[in-house]
């Protein structure tokens, strides 16, 4: 890793400058993470007096637990649906904004603000709209013969959190797609237009392939978002229920560890989550490096 061509010579100053960040990182990141790894190999008795080393027992138990495996599968489905829903709507909006030159800034302003809405608030907003007693959407759905009650139906609860989580993420995806679209060379589009390609065909055979670095980057970011930042959405709307129908991995770490006080199992789950984050971060950085050469 490079520094400047000429650097300052000073024995203590650099350590002094790094100290605040390093101390906070060590105390609040590295130490707790190592504690999580440590207690994932231990079992504490019900009174918290005795801690014994149990090897991989916590892991084997977690990985054999049907409720954990269900949460894993559910998290995967949730991630894919939120990512697809918010990315496709965001792409549609970005393509449209990219077409209207004069009012592009106006529409952009009206589309970016949900980024600033907290996930909990996004959850509450949609929870209110879908309220089974007075909500507007259940009334509309009634006309189509659909009886909406996400407190009873697991799949409806899943739809609710998917919509709320996707709604919040549209603005982020929109901004990146718009930036991607604006960097597509105009000459390519014109050449295709002269050859008689319709706007629809031009989009699918030229613009969309050129957007693939942006799309790939957003896929990773969105999966990351759905896995970790949707805790608030779920806690505000369904609380993991009904039954365990909306229990994601992060929500399960929380319920098992904080509410259930099962530290060993919760730590093992935390370590597995860390592994997932490390893989996602690694993919993301590989991508960033590739894009520099692009």
């Amino acid at each position, binding site marked *: 890793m490079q520094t400047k061509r000429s650097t300052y010579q000073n024995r203590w100053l650099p350590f002094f400058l790094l100290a605040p960040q390093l101390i906070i990182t060590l105390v*609040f990141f590295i130490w707790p993470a190592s504690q999580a790894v440590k207690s994932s190999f231990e079992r504490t008795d019900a009174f918290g007096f005795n801690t014994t080393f149990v090897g991989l027992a916590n892991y084997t138990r977690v990985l054999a637990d049907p409720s954990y495996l269900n949460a894993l599968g559910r998290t995967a489905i949730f991630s894919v649906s939120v990512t697809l829903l918010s990315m496709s709507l965001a792409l549609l909006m970005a393509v449209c904004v990219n077409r209207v030159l004069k009012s592009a800034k106006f529409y952009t302003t009206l589309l970016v603000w949900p980024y600033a809405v907290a996930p909990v608030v996004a959850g509450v907003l949609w929870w209110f709209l879908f309220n089974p007693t007075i909500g507007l959407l259940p009334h509309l759905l009634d006309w189509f013969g659909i009886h909406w009650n996400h407190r009873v139906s697991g799949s409806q609860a899943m739809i609710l959190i998917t919509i709320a989580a996707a709604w919040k993420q549209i603005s982020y995806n929109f901004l990146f797609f718009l930036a991607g679209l604006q960097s597509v060379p105009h000459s390519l589009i014109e050449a295709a237009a002269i050859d008689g390609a319709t706007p629809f065909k031009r989009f699918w055979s030229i613009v969309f392939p050129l957007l693939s670095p942006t799309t790939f980057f957003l896929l990773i970011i969105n999966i990351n978002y759905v896995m970790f930042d949707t805790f608030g959405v779920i806690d505000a709307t369904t609380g993991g229920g009904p039954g365990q129908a909306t229990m994601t991995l992060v929500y399960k770490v929380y319920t098992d560890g904080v509410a259930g006080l099962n530290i060993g199992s919760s730590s093992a789950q935390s370590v597995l989550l860390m592994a997932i984050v490390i893989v996602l971060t690694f993919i993301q950085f590989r991508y960033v490096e590739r894009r520099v050469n692009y």
Partner: protein
Amino acid sequence: MVENRPFLNILTHLVLILGVLVVAFPVYVAFIASTHEPGAFVRGVMPLLPGENMWATYSQMLGSGWQVAGAPPVWLMLANSTIMALTIAIGKIAISILSAFAIVYFRFPFRMLAFWIIFITLMLPVEVRIIPTYAVVADLGMLNSYAGLTLPLIASATATFLFRQFFMTVPEELMEASRVDGAGPMKFFKDILLPVSITNIAALFVIMFIYGWVQYLWPLLVTTDEDFYTIVLGIKRLMASSDRVPAWNLIMATVTLAMVPPVLVVLLMQKLFVKGLTETEK
């Protein structure tokens, strides 16, 4: 535009207007709900046109709060959120710019080690280290304090990377010239590096302010004393009691007030916001 297609232009605008309306609709409904009396939600469908109870609701929530639900007044929660968001934003920027300065402008032993320790924080979001971090904060006696709310969220690899990237593009001549003029490293940092970084600092500030404002899981764990409730946490507490007393107007007034500050930050500083978002890339 490559060619003129009137029909497609109209369609584009229609799609955009529809999109804007769909995005705004939940917030509109929440705001409308906050302007009605509690009785409006007893039966039937939720109202879609403004009511007349707006001032009463908002002054009640901002002033005394909703005692039954055990939530403090909204102004206190807004103040807590502001303190938390500002501390996190300023703290992140301060510690990251100092460490990036050290990494770029000095050569010293363990430089790579320091870089890797900072890098690792990317892989440890608070959600994956909930319980042990809580234990550390409890051991340090920082539960129910602003320090406990903010410090564990303040280290940021992304901000350090951003400043490092930016410092690498600052012309070498600036530093060499200042050295010829006899300025030491801290004088160079204060009088030259900080002023040229000001746009980056502002862009990062917008992103980090929002990051701090929308935090939920962490405040949920470390604050049990309602004097430290943030507004986002307060909404959840209000809802928890709403199964008994569905005071939708009060909840939705709080929701509206919780959205106003960060949304204003995004709208008023849109240019900096977009710059911050696309450059931190996370």
